[in-house]
């Protein structure tokens, strides 16, 4: 048989998601407008079922589909993270869509299908599959970004995201082609084996790595390939912005880690410099850019660029530690730092954008100044946003703090002191723009336009979950960090 039953079990979450996506899509035309509300919960059930399926998948680790898929702890970890992000996004979208008058089942179907792509990325062991997973999630998000299609900004950002995304895809593909040319295979472990058998990586492989980095760097929004981020984040429907800043980024990092630490591991010296420089550039571009923003979505967009930079520091550290065979534990810690940071980052970013999605309905309340006096109008929202912003700064007792702590620790262990210092400098820089929002919310008088509807229950759940999660990671990071260190790549 071409496909065995264990094969199926190892992609069960994706199958479940796809089936529910089809259900949502198929039900859409048969529902009257008043009943479209059931599609969101249906999608949510799908994600929950996929979470359960991930547990099943976790019980059957190993290769599947002729080694196209490698189900390991790393993949399972990302599956959980990605599914949680999708679930929170759906919850945050429930009321938002009704309010924005774009309540169509296709939205949820696209989210689910996009998550299928991201799930595949997390467990892919082969470049064809990586590429297809990446494109599945990208094309779904291109559409989602432009979902408010009569809105000028929305379709502008869809256009920019699409053009630059496809551009980056072409680079990624060229990179893959060159790697294929250098090794004659597209399986990650085989690439590693063949590259390892050469003394120095061939010219083709090196060029391939560079091109791959361009493509993946775009997907994680690292400098200098970050230009699309603010525009796309600003124009997209805000729950999608939240999703974009967490989901595809996490999935892209998963692929990034897997390709670079599995396939390209023998050539790691070659790409260390790129990562290092990119981390630095990304942090500065993100933080300096955020400083001058007045639009809150753009500000958060730049902040997410900056955070990609922090993650890249840990990435560089893990890479540097590859040479040091002895210090196995330090390398694991460095990689676990990436995973931990991603979780913390996803929680706080999702939460922050969820608040923005509720306050900045339609085209209103986009400016930071519009948040003046949010505290007096809506203490719950203000408090949640404050927690997320403080966590983004990296103040103690928040997930953001410990994330940075682990990252910088890893960097110190890898002797990347300069990188750490510059990272800290950046964190200090970032205090300015995050605190400005907090100050505006608490100190300033509310403006006339700030009328906020009461928080609907699903959104309240999302915010509470994210806020508590952020605090939990900040107070008791142990469990999650443990899990993360067991989920690293070998």
């Amino acid at each position: 048989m071409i496909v065995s039953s264990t094969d199926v079990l190892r992609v069960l979450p994706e199958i479940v998601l796809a089936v529910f996506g089809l259900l949502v899509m198929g039900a859409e035309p048969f529902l009257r407008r008043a009943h479209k509300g059931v599609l969101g919960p249906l999608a949510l059930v799908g994600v929950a079922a996929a979470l359960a399926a991930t547990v099943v998948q976790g019980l059957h680790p190993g290769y599947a589909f002729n080694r196209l898929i490698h189900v390991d702890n790393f993949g399972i970890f990302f599956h959980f993270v990605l599914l949680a992000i999708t679930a929170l996004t759906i919850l945050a979208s429930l009321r938002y869509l009704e309010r924005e008058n774009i309540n169509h089942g296709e939205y949820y179907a696209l989210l689910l299908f996009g998550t299928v792509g991201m799930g595949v990325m997390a467990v892919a062991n082969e470049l064809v599959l990586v590429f297809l997973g990446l494109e599945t999630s990208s094309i779904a998000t291109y559409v989602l970004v432009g979902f408010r299609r009569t809105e000028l900004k929305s379709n502008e950002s869809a256009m920019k995201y699409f053009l630059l995304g496809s551009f980056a895809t072409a680079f990624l593909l060229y990179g893959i082609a060159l790697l294929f040319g250098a090794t004659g295979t597209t399986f990650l472990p085989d690439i590693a084996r063949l590259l390892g058998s050469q003394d120095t990586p061939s010219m083709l492989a090196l060029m391939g790595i560079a091109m791959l980095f361009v493509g993946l760097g775009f997907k994680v929004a690292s400098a200098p390939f970050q230009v699309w981020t603010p525009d796309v984040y600003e124009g997209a429907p805000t729950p999608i912005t939240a999703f974009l800043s967490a989901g595809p980024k996490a999935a892209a990092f998963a692929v990034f880690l897997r390709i670079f630490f599995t396939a390209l591991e023998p050539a790691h010296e070659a790409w260390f410099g790129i990562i290092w420089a990119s981390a630095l550039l990304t942090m500065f571009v993100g933080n300096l850019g955020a400083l001058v923003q007045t639009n809150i979505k753009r500000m958060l967009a730049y902040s997410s660029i900056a955070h990609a930079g922090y993650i890249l520091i840990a990435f560089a550290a893990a890479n540097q530690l590859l040479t040091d065979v002895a210090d196995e534990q330090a390398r694991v810690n460095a990689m676990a730092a990436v995973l931990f940071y991603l979780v913390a980052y996803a929680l706080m970013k999702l939460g922050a954008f969820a608040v923005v999605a509720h306050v900045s309905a339609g085209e209103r309340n986009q400016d930071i100044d519009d948040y003046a006096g949010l505290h007096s109008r809506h203490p719950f929202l203000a408090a949640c946003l404050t927690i997320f912003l403080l966590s983004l700064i990296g103040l103690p007792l928040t997930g953001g703090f410990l994330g940075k702590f682990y990252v910088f620790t890893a960097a110190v262990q890898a002797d990347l002191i300069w990188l750490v210092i510059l990272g800290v400098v950046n964190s200090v820089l970032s205090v300015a723009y995050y605190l400005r929002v907090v100050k505006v919310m608490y100190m300033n008088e509310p403006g006339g336009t700030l009328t906020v509807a009461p928080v609907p229950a699903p959104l309240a759940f999302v915010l509470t979950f994210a806020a508590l999660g952020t605090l939990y990671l900040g107070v008791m990071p142990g469990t999650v960090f443990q899990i993360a260190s067991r989920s690293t790549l070998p």
Partner: protein
Amino acid sequence: MTLETVLFYVLGGLAVLGALNLILQRHPIHSALSLILVMASLAVLYLLLGAEFIAAVQIIIYAGAIMVLFVFVIMLLNAGEEERTNLSRMARYVGLPVAAVLLSGLAYLLYRAWPVDLLVQPHPSLGQTRPLAEMLFKDFVLPFELTSILILIAVLGAVVLAKKEL
């Protein structure tokens, strides 16, 4: 000079000319036609390289479906000639030189990467559709299934975006 060599130079030249024309023409229809020319010459090059199936797919899907869609949209929107505007300074002073340097470097490196005595040569499993099909439906069955979701997304997305009323 054998027939193959001549064909390579002619078709390669056509492809480069088409690509140049694509970026130099101001009317999108002409650009699209140039791109079709590139695709057609590439298809014949694929034949020379022994990839018959890919050559056919290239014409059927790429030139026969995707580019038709382009032409269709250009006609539908009645897109006129591109306005002549100045390039953004960023693109002109940084982007283009960097791109030019990088890519000529790339071309040179690729030229150096392989010895010149590696020639195109026939091989039994090239040009057969069967091994390709077996690979596609046995080894790569999962990606193949994934493409169905991908296409579903594309259809769904295109309908959601471009439909007049929802």
